């Protein structure tokens, strides 16, 4: 200190005394000196302080242990440093950071203590306030955080951010990474939006950008909403809200509601439900080996539509995902188990509520008393005559079989629910399905597969035909669409008409799609009439909608209708009125001859033919249906089965199909005498088809001998067909057509 002059020291002391809270005490802590700053902050006068013990300013909040430690330190000659809360004269307080040190005489003996203090009250208050706010934020469920224009998260964020974002620490991390780590697209959108926000000054534009920033996200564990706010300093405040539980709860409630709906639907449509469930159980037992089989795909799709009617949610979802897997050829047998599990989950639910008995197959039918009386009379006649008349027994058997017949009306009625449902799911307004027809028209059980498949006609009408309400109003239509289903029996046929008042079909779209799928060659388009073009919608993989939805769009729907129709030997005609509606007119034989021998034999032949074409020749069979007339221009090979009954079969194959078949027979080996072979080939094919089908014929026909294939004069064949029970079948393939006839000649009684 020697280099300071006296006035310098006085000057410094004054300056120091004004700004530093300083005091001197004796060894007992009695105040000897206080600076001006001390006087000011303590609110005492200097006179009130001098001679008083230092603890006059001691605040009751300070624990005595601190002072004990302080005295031990300084009395041993060391310096003590620490923060102390002091009491002012008028009960207020102030915080100081103090340094206290011993004062010694020339001999080094402690003669008192000097202390300097720095006022840290503001800092202490700020820290306290900060802690309070932080505490408050940490105790709010939502997460708050702030990030700057470099996308860096600032230090003060609420604790819940870490839980919501599933992070250990987010300070200084990039907000985009933290919010949308697993979603590149959202991240880009977010960054782009924020950058625009930083740049723009216009508040309206800012609002638009804010509304476009991602509002929702979920990481592997938490689902959260994100709200944004621009702060006055240009930084962004983000509010995160965990909605996982809320979403789960909403989903749970939705699920429960769906389950209830399922049970109600099933209870009110018990008969159909039980039957559907039983047939699905059979389906599940079937072989899934050939998952690319069109029939299997169609069946799956039909089941999906039907289960949708019953609201069997787990099953529908499982079928939907299997269809998607098949589409991407990712189906494995593991998925089949998933389907079973999902189905059993629904079944268990139903059984839990209605009991296990509820789902047992229905084994009773309603029978008209009149029918039973007829059979009794017939049986009595049979016994009385004691004849060995197999024909009469056959008739009685027929009557018995017909007792299983069911009301066609009821078969269609099932769709009333589905229509309502489809409409709701595709946001269309629709009147309830109107069914017009006799309730007592009874048809064979076999019709059920067909009437079930009609679900695709209805879903197509609703999804693609009926316009949404706005469009309908625009075109001066009633805002609600209407689908009418009417039927009547005419002769041996049922005529069924299903019409909607939607927008019909744009045939140009059909042509474009048919060309795209290679269903027809470009040059041939002009030769097709309107009906032929419309019929393309029944082709496999044909779908007018690009999207796959749970309702429609698999492209197999209408094809399965056509398939089931062909099994009943029915025909369909389409009436298309652009912008006014679409009608399907079905003609289906339903009386007696549906069960006659030619039909049964025909079914067996069709099954064999389909297998032969698909599995052996690897040819897609597009359509199989019955013909009214024989094409006499074609040259037919024939074969005859002789024995108890005589059956004549004939076949015709298009050239391309013959070539394809030859390829199969020779497997790439060189073919000699090709022309000759081609002539006899169709006879060879017929031989194979009939040979393979015989075991599936009605029992009367299985003991027959197969004749040698011959080429029969077409005129004779035609005469046979006209005068005998016969069935004509056409199979359309990608390589042209194959025509078959089955003629059952007089039984040799």
């Amino acid at each position, binding site marked *: 200190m020697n280099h300071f002059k006296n006035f310098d020291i006085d000057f410094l002391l004054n300056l120091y005394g004004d700004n530093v809270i300083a005091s001197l005490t004796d060894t007992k802590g009695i105040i000897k000196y206080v600076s001006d700053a001390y006087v000011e902050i303590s609110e005492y006068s200097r006179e009130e302080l001098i001679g008083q013990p230092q603890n006059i300013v001691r605040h009751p909040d300070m624990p005595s242990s601190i002072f004990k430690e302080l005295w031990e330190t300084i009395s041993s000659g060391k310096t003590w440093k620490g923060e102390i809360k002091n009491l002012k004269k008028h009960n207020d307080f102030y915080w100081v950071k103090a340094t206290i040190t011993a004062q010694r005489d020339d001999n080094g003996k402690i003669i008192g203590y000097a202390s300097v203090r720095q006022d840290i009250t503001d800092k202490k208050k700020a820290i306290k306030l900060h802690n309070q706010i932080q505490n408050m934020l940490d105790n709010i469920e939502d997460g708050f955080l702030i990030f700057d224009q470099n996308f860096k998260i600032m230090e003060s964020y609420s604790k819940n951010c870490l839980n919501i974002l599933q992070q250990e620490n987010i300070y200084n991390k990039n907000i985009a990474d933290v919010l949308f780590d697993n979603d590149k697209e959202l991240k880009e959108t977010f960054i*782009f*939006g924020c950058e*625009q926000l930083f740049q723009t000054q216009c508040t309206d534009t800012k609002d*638009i950008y804010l509304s*476009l920033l*991602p509002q929702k996200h979920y990481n592997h564990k938490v689902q959260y909403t994100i709200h944004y706010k621009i702060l006055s300093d240009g930084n962004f405040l983000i509010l995160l809200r965990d909605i996982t539980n809320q979403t789960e709860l909403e989903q749970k409630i939705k699920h429960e509601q769906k389950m209830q709906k399922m049970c109600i639907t099933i209870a009110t449509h018990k008969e159909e439900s039980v039957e559907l469930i039983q047939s699905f159980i059979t389906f599940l037992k079937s072989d899934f080996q050939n998952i690319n089989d069109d029939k299997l795909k169609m069946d799956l799709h039909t089941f999906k539509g039907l289960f949708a009617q019953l609201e069997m949610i787990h099953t529908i979802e499982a079928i939907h995902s299997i269809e998607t897997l098949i589409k991407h050829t990712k189906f494995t047998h593991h998925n089949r188990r998933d389907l079973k599990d999902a189905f059993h989950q629904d079944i268990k639910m139903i059984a839990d509520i209605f009991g296990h008995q509820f789902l047992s197959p229905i084994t009773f039918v309603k029978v008209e008393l009149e029918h039973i009386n007829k059979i009794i009379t017939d049986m009595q006649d049979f016994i009385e005559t004691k004849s060995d008349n197999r024909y009469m027994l056959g008739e009685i058997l027929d009557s018995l079989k017909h007792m299983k017949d069911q009301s066609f009306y009821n078969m269609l009625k099932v769709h009333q629910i589905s229509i309502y449902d489809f409409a709701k799911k595709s946001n269309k307004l629709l009147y309830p399905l109107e069914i017009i027809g006799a309730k007592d028209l009874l048809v064979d059980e076999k019709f059920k597969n067909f009437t079930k498949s009609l679900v695709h006609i209805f879903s197509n009408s609703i999804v693609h035909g009926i*316009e949404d309400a*706005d*469009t309908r109003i*625009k075109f001066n239509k009633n805002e609600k669409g209407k689908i009418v289903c009417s039927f009547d029996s005419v002769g041996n046929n049922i005529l069924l008409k299903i019409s909607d008042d939607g927008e019909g079909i744009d045939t140009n779209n059909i042509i474009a799609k048919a060309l795209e799928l290679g269903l027809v060659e470009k040059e041939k388009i002009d030769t097709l009439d309107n009906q032929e073009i419309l019929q393309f919608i029944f082709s496999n993989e044909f779908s007018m909608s690009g999207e796959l939805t749970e309702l429609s769009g698999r492209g197999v729907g209408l094809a399965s209708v056509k398939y089931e129709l062909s099994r009943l030997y029915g025909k369909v005609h389409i009436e298309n009125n652009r912008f006014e509606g679409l009608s399907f007119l079905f003609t289906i034989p339903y009386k007696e001859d549906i069960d006659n021998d030619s039909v049964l034999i025909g079914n067996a032949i069709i099954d064999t033919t389909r297998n032969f074409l698909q599995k052996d020749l690897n040819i897609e069979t597009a359509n199989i249906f019955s013909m009214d007339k024989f094409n006499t221009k074609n040259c037919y090979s024939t074969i005859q089965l002789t024995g108890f009954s005589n059956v004549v079969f004939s076949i015709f194959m298009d050239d391309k199909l013959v070539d394809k078949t030859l390829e199969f027979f020779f497997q790439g080996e060189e073919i000699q005498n090709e022309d000759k072979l081609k002539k006899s080939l169709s006879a060879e094919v017929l031989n194979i088809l009939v040979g393979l089908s015989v075991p599936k014929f009605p029992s009367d026909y299985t003991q027959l001998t197969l004749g040698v294939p011959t080429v029969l004069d077409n005129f004779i064949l035609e005469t046979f067909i006209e005068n005998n029970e016969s069935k004509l079948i056409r199979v359309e393939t990608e390589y042209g057509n194959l025509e078959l006839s089955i003629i059952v000649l007089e039984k040799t009684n």
Partner: protein
Amino acid sequence: MANILVVDDAQIIRASISKYMEGFGHSIIATAGNGEEGIVQFKEHSPDLVLMDISMPEVNGIKNGIDALCEIMKINPSAKVVMVTSQGEQRLVMEAISKGAKGYILKPVTKEKFQNIIEKLDLK
């Protein structure tokens, strides 16, 4: 009353937008089924408002509604263009806004959404 140009590749959307706007007393001066046609119609009619679908099939190098928007902004920098958009197209909308679009409407289009836009743009 404002003169409006509607550009959308879906006929149904064009029809319903037209219906709503006419309901508000505005007149649909023209409609277009793609961006290129939209630009041509804009040049011809100078509409007070353009409602533009954001994603439309590419025609003559006009990739989508944003390209069409840019062309329109070149022709008239103070043009009022509102984008019509679907969920999931937020990024595209942001781009459109940065290129000068005045707002956007999220499909499905409703009367209320149009009312908001009309009020915001102060169309008389």
